[in-house]
């Protein structure tokens, strides 16, 4: 098992190199650089811009630029942001990273506490009124675009009812302890709901079909024939089996958790990775764009590894050796 994990980490190295080449190549393939598309000051001669380009190394051949960039990353530096003068890319990301993680975890939490019980319930009573109701909700959740749902909840719960704030992460930086925690959660509710909507819908559907599948299997009949109680059959024998594919999905959720919030963060003007990413794309702040893309790539790789590890923990038939 440990050998397997170490091997998987070693495989990460070539994958990350390939990923970085693709990210860098794509960034370079996009037309323009931080200075194009801007209204340039006519007082300043073109040679000044050329000089600045040279300072950033943008006049060098692309492979040379890549090697410079990659070797800096290897030393732990993603360079300096172009838009935010003098700020390192790491510090920009670090400042927002936790916000996005909180948002993602909160959305995931909502997803799980809503989707799993509903999924189990519908599986136990398929074709009941509640099953049809939740199925309808499921299609609704998958069909409604995130930004639209976000705007609707802002209108309803923030503007009309005034229950939750429409943007930001905290009302005052002076808050500490429990009060701070409460305030952060309060700010997370609307973006969390919005972000969690689609995944709640899909997890609900997954859970329903998994539980239904397992409930029909022979070993469930055996468990019943052994005289096990209904609760034991459901929560022990059924759930443990039904959770196997769900856990795999959860591991793979790590990437989207960090990257999938881009639109939601934008709608709620939420200071996370997503808003930083969009801003950087618009401003052609390539160091930031590349760093975030790389970060999401790593998150997906790690997520997949976690899924595989969890998988072997819950399913004894899976052994990596």
């Amino acid at each position, binding site marked *: 098992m440990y050998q397997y994990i170490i091997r998987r980490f070693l495989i990460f190295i070539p994958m990350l190199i390939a990923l970085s080449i693709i990210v860098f190549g794509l960034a370079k393939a996009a037309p323009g650089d931080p200075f194009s598309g801007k209204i340039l000051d006519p007082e300043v001669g073109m040679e000044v811009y050329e000089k600045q380009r040279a300072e950033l190394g943008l006049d060098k051949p692309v492979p040379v630029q890549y090697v410079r960039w990659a070797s800096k990353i290897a030393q732990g530096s993603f360079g300096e942001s172009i838009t935010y003068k003098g700020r390192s890319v790491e510090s920009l990301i670090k400042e927002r990273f936790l916000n996005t993680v909180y948002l993602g975890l909160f959305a995931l939490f909502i997803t799980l506490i809503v989707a799993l019980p509903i999924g189990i319930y519908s599986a136990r009573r398929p074709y009941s009124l509640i099953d049809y109701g939740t199925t309808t909700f499921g299609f609704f959740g998958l069909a409604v675009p995130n930004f639209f749902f976000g705007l609707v909840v802002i209108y309803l719960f923030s503007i009309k009812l005034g229950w939750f704030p429409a943007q930001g992460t905290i009302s005052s930086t002076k808050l500490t302890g429990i009060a701070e925690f409460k305030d952060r959660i309060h700010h997370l509710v609307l973006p969390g709901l919005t972000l969690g909507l689609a995944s709640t819908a899909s997890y609900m559907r997954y859970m329903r079909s998994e539980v239904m599948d397992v409930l029909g299997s022979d*070993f469930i009949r055996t468990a*019943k024939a052994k005289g096990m109680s209904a609760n034991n059959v459901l929560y022990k024998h059924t759930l443990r089996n039904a959770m196997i594919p769900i856990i795999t999905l959860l591991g793979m959720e790590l990437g989207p958790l960090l990257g999938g919030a881009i639109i939601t963060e934008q709608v709620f003007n939420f200071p996370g990775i997503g808003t930083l990413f969009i801003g950087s794309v618009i401003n052609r702040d390539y160091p930031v764009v590349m760093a975030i893309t790389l970060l999401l790539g790593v998150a997906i790789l790690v997520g997949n590894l976690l899924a595989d590890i969890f998988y072997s923990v819950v399913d004894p038939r899976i052994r990596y050796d």
Partner: protein
Amino acid sequence: MSSEPVLDVQKLKTYFYLDQNLVAKAVDDVSFSVYPGETVAIVGESGSGKSITALSIMQLINKPGRIVEGSIRVREKNLLDLKEKQMTTIRGNHIGMIFQEPMTALNPVFTIGNQLTEMIRKHKKVSKEIARNKATELLRVVGIPRPDAIMKEYPHQLSGGMRQRVMIAMAISCEPELIIADEPTTALDVTIQAQILDLLKDMQKRYNLAVLLITHDLGVVYEYTDRVIVMYGGQIVEQAPTKKLLSLTKHPYTNGLLSSLPNMEEDVERLGTIKGTVPAAYNFPAGCRFSTRCPAVMEKCRQINPPLLQLDADHFVRCHLYEDGGDE
């Protein structure tokens, strides 16, 4: 038979409500008893209702199926009157069950030990220690080598025959009076089949169990059972002690089953067959259910379904041929 039956099924009807006006009468008016220490076989083709009868006794019929009528008595209690929660004290405790598919009948994510002990603890209310010791002992009894190690293993690490041994260990773990074995050897290869059936026989002697063996293998019936119930189309068509049924076969269907067996003594060109297939349970003919395939069919058979006639003390048959006192 002298003593009280361990299982007494009367007029059992289990129907499946497939559609608004489509009812599959999978088990239709079935009555029989099983006495202590006895092995009774239920024989029939696929779709004859034998497995549904077994599952009805355990009350493990899933929707859209439902037990419509009848009584199932175990120890003076009518199981059909029990609530689901009370039923869990009967299942596994008074009636053990062994299924056809050992490969899928055990939960893949729990160890053998876990699956055995949880059952012992549920019914016997003993400590984990005692349950584990008992489970290990049971594995030894059913002939599993290194039972201590197997306790910690998962079902996928065992062969089909071993898993069926585990299932038998489970079925006998709480000393039930009755074991229902639903085609316990169908999924196993022939050499293992004999081992498993011998083991079942041993266990029966050791614990004085009654066994209800559901099978379609007449060889198994001949070798291992005391009494046979032949089912066709959800009903009992013939019932008699094994030797008697095989030598003094009455019902044309039973005859058909027997003539389809290969015979060592006689040299035949072709094995006998019963033409056609079992009619679907929602589409039985109006009269005798076997009338569509019966070689001795009469006009009467197409109109009236014959009752189960008693020929002598222990031989019953459902056929118009024997209506006047039983002489052919």
